[in-house]
């Protein structure tokens, strides 16, 4: 196992200070290692995640070679050739487990942002005090965006949040974690070959959830209530002005409708299994009569833009032609289009749960089975 940094590197280097997992502790499980602390319904801090993964590396006796970066990977007769910072390696099979979120995605309009405005990605962001005083425009309202908008607003700054398509979820439903419901009624088990539009499902934004001790909901209503101003999707930048879509009401309506359909699924499941409690419905998301369509970035109202516009994998070291036109890895349930090459840790790799830490157990087993078959067939 080659790791460019240390064990749990992404959790050490690429996350902000206050981040906690949005998945509850009981769901943080790796093969043979389950959370065994006192707070099954809590959410791990970064320190706790790092400790958890370090513990897994120790108990599983994973043969990790740290500080070894893969610089290139190419196909050769009978297998693959790697160049690494620790020297060349030849092997018959490779599992790419370099993560789905190596680089923050930033739209190209960033180039038109006036120099007076500081621009940050979630990888640059650590805590609010490091930002210049003054207003912040957070672009993107999925998990990262809502969490950073909330934290920045609580630090006393004026915050404008640009909202595109998003996934609204309450933290708890009928007294239980919303992710418990999804687990119980089988949402996470849905397989890649059962999903209607796999391409779209793989691009689904992360849900508007935050892990806090009080298990609070962090949807757009909660943000508005704390004073965050909501505007539409960032549609362009012209003459120093950010231009926002006038379609905010519809993205909000889509998310509200989708939430209701999900709650219907929960209630149906609860009806057949006899889970106690009564159905709840949340009021439609409230919006101001008209959201701002423009924001002058030259006037000093906004001093910082935080791009919470998603993440992507980095395959710049991969010299095997297995990427599609959009730079995504072509694979079928983790089996890449090149014999002996495999992938793990990508969104909906084999099941909806593949996106999360708890998805790895099933995925790894299936992929390793295939890999073992590949090696055996060629002996």
């Amino acid at each position, binding site marked *: 196992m080659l790791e460019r940094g240390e064990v749990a590197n992404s959790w050490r280097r690429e996350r902000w200070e206050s981040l906690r997992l949005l998945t509850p502790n009981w769901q943080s499980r790796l093969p043979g290692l389950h959370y065994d602390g006192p707070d099954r319904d809590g959410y791990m801090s970064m320190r706790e995640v790092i400790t958890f993964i370090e513990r897994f590396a120790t108990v599983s006796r994973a043969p990790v070679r740290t500080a070894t970066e893969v610089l290139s990977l190419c196909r050769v007769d009978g297998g693959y050739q790697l160049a690494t910072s620790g020297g060349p390696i030849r092997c018959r099979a490779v599992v790419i487990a370099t993560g789905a979120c190596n680089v923050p995605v930033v739209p190209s309009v960033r180039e038109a942002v006036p120099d007076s405005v500081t621009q940050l990605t979630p990888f640059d962001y650590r805590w609010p005090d490091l930002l210049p005083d003054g207003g912040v425009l957070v672009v993107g309202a999925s998990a990262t965006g809502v969490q950073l908008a909330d934290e920045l607003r609580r630090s006393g700054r004026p915050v404008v949040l640009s909202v595109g398509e998003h996934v609204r979820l309450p933290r708890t439903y009928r007294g239980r974690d919303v992710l418990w419901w999804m687990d119980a009624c089988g949402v996470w088990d849905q397989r890649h070959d059962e999903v209607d539009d796999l391409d779209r499902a793989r691009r689904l934004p992360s849900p508007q959830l935050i892990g806090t001790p009080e298990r609070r909901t962090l949807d757009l209503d909660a943000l508005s209530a704390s004073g965050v101003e909501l505007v539409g999707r960032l549609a362009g930048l*012209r003459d120093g002005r950010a231009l926002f*879509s*006038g*379609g905010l009401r519809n993205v909000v309506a*889509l998310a509200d*409708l989708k939430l209701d*359909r999900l709650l219907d699924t929960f209630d149906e499941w609860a009806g057949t299994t006899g889970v106690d409690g009564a159905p709840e419905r949340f009021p439609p998301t409230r919006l101001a009569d008209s959201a701002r369509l423009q924001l002058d970035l030259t006037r000093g109202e906004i001093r910082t833009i935080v791009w919470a516009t998603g993440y992507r994998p980095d395959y710049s070291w991969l010299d095997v032609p297995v990427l599609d036109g959009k730079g995504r890895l072509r694979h079928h349930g983790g089996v890449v289009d090149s014999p002996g090459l495999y992938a793990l840790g990508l969104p909906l790799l084999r099941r909806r749960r593949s996106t999360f830490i708890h998805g790895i157990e099933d995925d790894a087993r299936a992929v390793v089975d295939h890999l073992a078959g590949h090696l055996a067939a060629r002996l």
Partner: protein
Amino acid sequence: MTTVDNGVNVQALLDARGALKDAPDAAQFTWRATSTWRNGVHSTTRIQNFFGLGQEQSHKTETVFDADHPAVFAAEDNGITPIEYLLVGLASCLTAGVASVAQNRGIQLRSVESTVEGQHDIRGILGVDSDVRNGFNDVKVTFTIDADASQQEIEALVAQSQKRSAVFDALTNPTNVTVAVA
């Protein structure tokens, strides 16, 4: 077997979607209109040809649109005002979307009516107040739909139709516009 028929050939649309996925060039369309000044603020705009799927295309017939201003603007009212054409575009685009999405989701429509209202402060175009914009301040579309579906499914149809609407996008998002003199 579905017996739902809203008159939309969804299969053809899905096939096109599949075919164009790997042929982005064929998906490039150019829509054209040619306009002639008549008199006063009256003009006539004709539409027949467009470009798409890699070649010149043509509507069955040419369509002619008259635009003018109403009598309250001291004009002859030979046709609707240009900004009302935006309402035509928006209503027809969203309605087409509702029908297509309903067909795709197996929902039989019986009637789809909509009213589109654009709030317009004309002090902008008259130059009375430079803080007032020229275009609409607000556009409201209200659908009344009779279909074999729940209220929630109908709301989802309307939401999805906005999500895939060319005119909704053109109105809600900025577009680069270049006007040149030949």
